[in-house]
């Protein structure tokens, strides 16, 4: 019995972390966030590590790894607030295409980083009324809001009925919708009778992709929150006030202890959820919901407390701590806020209508 990462997974984490440390330091994140540069170079680098093809079967040009491996990578990306279309292009899109067995020709291009596929899932999760996607005669009309990846070449669009369609970005009117977190992009997509290819009319395909995406998003929060704790502890040890490091104050120590106590079990939860997606199907859905919701809550409290430990410095842009704060905030709201996801958890167990 061994609960935890395999040696290969640890190596994977090390190599991604090393790449990010060398190639995507905070300065680079700032550039992408300010619009000075795009995430294309980062994605190109990650492509050389095989990241886009992580979940794509080897016979389609991918690496053929599993959900827990994606969790490992997401943890690293979160820890480094890495700008990238990982969630949409490397997680959701491959999952949908493989599960549906459709347009598998795109998988190779995805794995090779040649195309990016964004996702517009809001409609199927519970979206605003004015985001209304309609399908008629193989054409889409209406619009999607807060779709992932403004720079995508294609979009997978889910309807209320959890059918999934593929559209070309160039056929649509795509407008960037900036959020607090500028390390990932979201957009509005307007469909004006746009040709759409039905990828799946099986709601299970949508759900499989959503579950995976939620766990991966939770892993991103895990990484981001752990980074904030590490920074807070390190800062407290060197920052002096009243002639002593603030780490000697019990109030500061207890803030750090509480953050740790809250986050540490999340690591095991995220790992197990990643494992269950591929290996324990009967537990996977419930775990995906709970992991998404629980990490959202812990991400919020940790990111607030870690900022407080940094005092005024945490509020400034000088250390850039806010990029992690906002990353946690983005992960909380996207793909279902905690209240909505917990209600799904209750439904899965027959506890809600």
């Amino acid at each position, binding site marked *: 019995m061994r609960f935890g990462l395999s040696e290969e997974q640890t190596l994977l984490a090390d190599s991604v972390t090393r790449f990010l440390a060398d190639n995507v330091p905070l300065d680079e994140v700032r550039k992408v966030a300010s619009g000075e540069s795009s995430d294309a170079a980062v994605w190109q680098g990650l492509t050389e590590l095989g990241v886009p093809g992580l979940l794509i079967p080897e016979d389609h040009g991918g690496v053929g790894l599993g959900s827990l491996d994606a969790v490992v990578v997401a943890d690293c990306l979160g820890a480094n607030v890495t700008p990238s279309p990982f969630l949409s292009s490397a997680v959701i899109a491959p999952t949908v295409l493989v599960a549906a067995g459709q347009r598998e020709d795109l998988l190779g291009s995805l794995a090779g980083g040649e195309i990016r596929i964004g996702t517009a899932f*809001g409609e199927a999760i*519970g*979206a*605003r*009324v004015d985001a209304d996607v309609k399908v008629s005669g193989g054409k889409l009309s209406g619009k999607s*809001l*807060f779709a992932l990846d403004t720079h995508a070449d294609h979009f997978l669009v889910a309807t209320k009925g959890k059918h999934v369609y593929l559209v070309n970005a160039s056929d649509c009117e795509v407008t960037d*919708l*900036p*959020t*607090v*977190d500028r390390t990932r992009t*979201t957009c*509005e997509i307007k469909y004006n009778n746009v040709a759409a290819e039905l990828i799946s009319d099986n709601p299970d395909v949508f759900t499989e992709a959503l579950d995976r995406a939620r766990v991966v998003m939770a892993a991103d929060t895990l990484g981001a929150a752990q980074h904030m704790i590490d920074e807070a502890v390190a800062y407290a040890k060197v920052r*002096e*006030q*009243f*002639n*002593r490091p603030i780490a*000697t*104050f019990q*109030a*500061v120590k207890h803030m750090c202890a509480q953050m740790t106590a809250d986050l540490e079990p999340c690591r095991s939860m995220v790992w197990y959820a990643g494992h269950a997606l591929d290996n324990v199907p009967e537990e996977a859905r419930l775990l995906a919901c709970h992991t998404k919701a629980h990490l959202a809550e812990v991400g*919020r409290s940790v990111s*607030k407390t870690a*900022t*407080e430990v940094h*005092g*005024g410095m*945490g*509020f*400034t*842009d*000088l250390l850039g*701590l*806010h990029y992690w*704060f*906002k990353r946690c*905030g*983005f992960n*909380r*709201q*996207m793909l279902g*806020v*905690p*209240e*909505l996801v917990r209600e799904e958890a209750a439904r899965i167990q027959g506890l809600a209508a």
Partner: protein
Amino acid sequence: MELSFGPEYESFRDEVRDFITKHKDQQAPSGAGSDAGKSWQKTLIEAGYTARTIPKEYGGFGAEPDMVKSRIINEEFATARMPGGLGGQGISMLIPTLLELGTDEQKEQFIKPTLHGEMVWCQGYSEPGAGSDLASLRTSAVLDGDEWVINGSKIWTSTAHLAHWMFCLVRTEPDAPKHNGISFLLLRMDTPGIEIRPLVDMTMNANFNEVFFTDVRVPKDQIVGRRGQGWQVANAILGHERDSLADPNASLTRLNSLIDLMKTETLGGERLIDNPLYRERLMKIQGRAMAMRYNDMHVLSSRLNKDQEAPLARMITKLQGTELRHELEALAIDAMGEVGLSFGSNPYLRGGGSWQYQFMYFLGLIIGGGTNQIQKNIISERGLGMPKEPKIEK
């Protein structure tokens, strides 16, 4: 329990309302330095609705201090959304300090132009290494002939780039105990050796600045109080600033905006207010906000009635008020789902982006003005008589 201010004050309230009616088309003047702002300030001073208690000789209205009248003015102006007088740290902090501790020459030189918007000030207290422990500040001023020579840096200096002058705390007696080695100096911002760098914060705005001093020379007499007395000079008025960080009436006004939002916004086809979970959170926050409003009335009453005391009620406002506002903004964000993330130029931005902005800004206020950990020290030590942090062995 007598909640009216009495007939005398009700007639004063009527006066204020008349004034407001007369000026109901007044627009908020843009910018501290604008002529419109200065002119409106003049009108308000003449009517006694700003600078009310500042002596006439220094450009004020010259009335006796009367907290009730001040409150009535504030209430009526807020209700009518009538623009108030000029603000800023020169008016709110420096003028009261000078009135109490300045020389006649200083009063003469600074109060009137400050009041009339001719002279804009910034505050130089905090330093990168002196936040919670402000008294450990290190920016030094050394007397060289008739001048102080200042070296060091200040942080959290709002409006530094607009200010003509700064009032600041510097260490003049390096060998004295830390609270007794500080002096309160006044200096022109165009003095050579001053560099201002905007300080971007998590909202991505430069609400504050850093100010660096390299051999900045300031005439010897630009000191308020005596050498080494600066800590006492600054503390004479510091307390007032903290209270204003978490005004309960502002929380309730904001809560009403949130209610409006929740009545109009929908998610998943449902009005936000119709979601029982968000409605419950809204009601929880409303209950807390109401408690804070009555707490505030209690504080006011204890100031008006000499036989009443409410030290704890006053001490807890910053701690509770800032957390409450942060949570209030968080509820709006949560309830809006993905839309709640909007920030910057985005057609789905609600409230002009204020929900995310205030969510972060109030996290800043949880930290600023004495972190909430410092607030808890104060409550437990001064409020509950618990021992101070014991001295540690070196």
